[in-house]
């Protein structure tokens, strides 16, 4: 449904994205994951025809985003990053405007607006001015605007950024429900968001795609190590030594950041373990047998950082293999000469 090949975009002489290629199948929800400044917005703006790429090609629903832009635009619903809306319009009149501008006429328009209003849970807000809405509801209006022409492709740029946890949850489930048969690209810099809403994830970092896979694969890939966090109350030094002595345990360290400096609440130990065999039970027993109290034991959540580090090191390993030991620097904004 969406085919992106070797996209590059230069702002002046600085490359915002380089050689970005990925595919999205019909009906898939793709998480476009990357930290701020990675090039997510840039890529999405190229797909929506906001501006052209410097080089490379992109096709949406079979139409080229450079030569058949109008066909592409008719099939895309786009929610830009900061949800720009006409704040002095009411929800109803704004959505009617959006529907009309997308070429829906007469009775169809009323129906289309009614549908997105109820789909996005905006019934009670219909007559309210957009500037009087909370951020969560504005996001819904933005979504409704994107959906009003029932597009095949939905492009959502960080739809949950700046919302409170309740609103985030609501928007995520809304996106999931509304995606239906649509093809969706959703950008985010929050890893768990991807696992909650997306089938597949493309990770972009410093303008390059560094991984594209299912989330399960990504979080397991090369994962021979895991780490657990054990909160222990008692003689922590002794516990540390005992745990370190367990065969198979890679390393033990005290996490002073998480321990927040109060010994009566216990200290956090970070224990590095191999994924196979599973030593978690052994570690737990060793701690309690030592006489100390084990207050909490959990696996450390895999963060975006971990995935990055893994993907980048995998990438580097691949590249240095092919380049026969050449050192690939990881400096961020490599100046690329103007073409």
């Amino acid at each position: 449904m969406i085919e992106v090949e070797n996209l590059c975009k230069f702002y002046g002489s600085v490359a915002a994205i380089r050689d970005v290629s990925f595919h999205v199948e019909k009906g898939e929800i793709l998480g476009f994951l990357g930290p701020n400044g990675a090039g997510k917005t840039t890529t999405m703006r190229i797909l929506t025809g906001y501006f052209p790429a410097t080089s490379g090609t992109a096709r949406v629903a079979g139409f080229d985003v450079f030569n058949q832009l109008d066909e592409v635009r008719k099939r895309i619903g786009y929610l830009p990053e900061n949800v720009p809306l006409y704040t002095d319009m009411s929800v109803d009149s704004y959505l009617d405007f959006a529907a009309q501008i997308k070429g829906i006429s007469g009775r169809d328009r009323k129906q289309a607006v009614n549908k997105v209003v109820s789909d996005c849970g905006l019934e009670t807000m219909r007559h309210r001015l957009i500037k009087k809405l909370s951020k969560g509801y504005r996001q819904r209006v933005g979504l409704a605007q994107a959906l009003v022409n029932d597009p095949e492709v939905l492009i959502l740029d960080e739809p949950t950024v700046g919302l409170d946890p309740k609103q985030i949850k609501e928007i995520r489930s809304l996106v999931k429900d509304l995606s239906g048969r649509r093809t969706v690209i959703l950008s985010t810099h929050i890893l768990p968001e991807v696992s909650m809403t997306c089938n597949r994830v493309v990770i972009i970092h410093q303008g390059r795609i560094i991984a594209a896979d299912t989330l399960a694969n990504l979080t397991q890939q090369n994962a021979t190590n895991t780490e657990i966090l054990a909160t222990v109350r008692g003689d922590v030094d002794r516990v540390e030594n005992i745990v370190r002595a367990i065969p198979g345990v890679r390393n033990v360290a005290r996490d002073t950041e998480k321990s927040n400096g109060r010994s009566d609440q216990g200290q956090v130990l970070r224990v590095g373990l191999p994924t196979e065999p599973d030593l978690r039970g052994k570690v737990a027993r060793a701690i309690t047998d030592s006489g100390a109290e084990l207050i909490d034991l959990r696996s450390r959540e895999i963060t975006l950082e971990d995935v990055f580090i893994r993907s980048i090191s995998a990438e580097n390993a691949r590249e240095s293999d092919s380049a026969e030991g050449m050192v690939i620097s990881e400096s961020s904004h490599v100046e690329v000469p103007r073409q």
Partner: protein
Amino acid sequence: MKAFLAIFKREVKQYFTSPIAYVVLVIFSFLSAWFYAIGFLFQFSEYCEQYPMIQMQMQQNPMMMNQNFPVPNFTDLIIPGYFGTLSIVLIFLVPLLTMRAISEEKRQGTIELLYTYPLSDLQVVLAKYMASMVVFTLMALLVVFYLMIPDFFSKEGGVVAWKPASSAILGFYLFGAACIAIGFIFSALTENQIVSAALTFTLLLFMWVVGWAAQGDNIPEQWKKVAEAVSLTNRSSDLYKGLVHLSDIVFYLCVMVGSLFITMRSLESHRWRA
């Protein structure tokens, strides 16, 4: 076409839900009524009263025949000056009318959606321009209404000769249309309404005062010609007198189309400037 209508409707509504259109209309109706009353009640009626005396003097003193003392005729005496004054009023009001047209979309970021909807930049610019022209048309209609008033009250009617008067109205409309188009250029150049208004005002003001050079003494002929050519206000003086030259009409249309073209280009520029 639907996209055009959508934007046009939204913009017109926008004008009348914000205070801008009302402020402009109120200021304009006050000033235009004021200058009309001055012209009509004082200048014209005074001249009418004095005219018999002047006539007598002219018969006694043939030297006076060479001077210009026309028969008191409202259309010839008052309309050119009145419309000239209205043009100056427009120079002050048009920046208010156009300042937010495109700059506000840039500031709020809503332009990003316009750029990604299935519509062309031409549609965006024209729809917004037409919406501004709606407000201006109301202003022009008000002036037409003023011109109709004397005929209501005079028994014989025919105070205003409509043929030269319509030429003046045409000139006023073209002048306003050109000013608004110029305002659009600056509205597209910046995302700050104040900057947009200030730049529009500066350019319009310049295109007015540059015309003074065309009348001034001790100014070289070529300079006068240039001043005459670029002055936005001098161009309408003949139209206000009831003299229709195609060249004047074409001048205003060129300014209008040219300005809208530049506006469109500057909208497009984000694609390659980014």
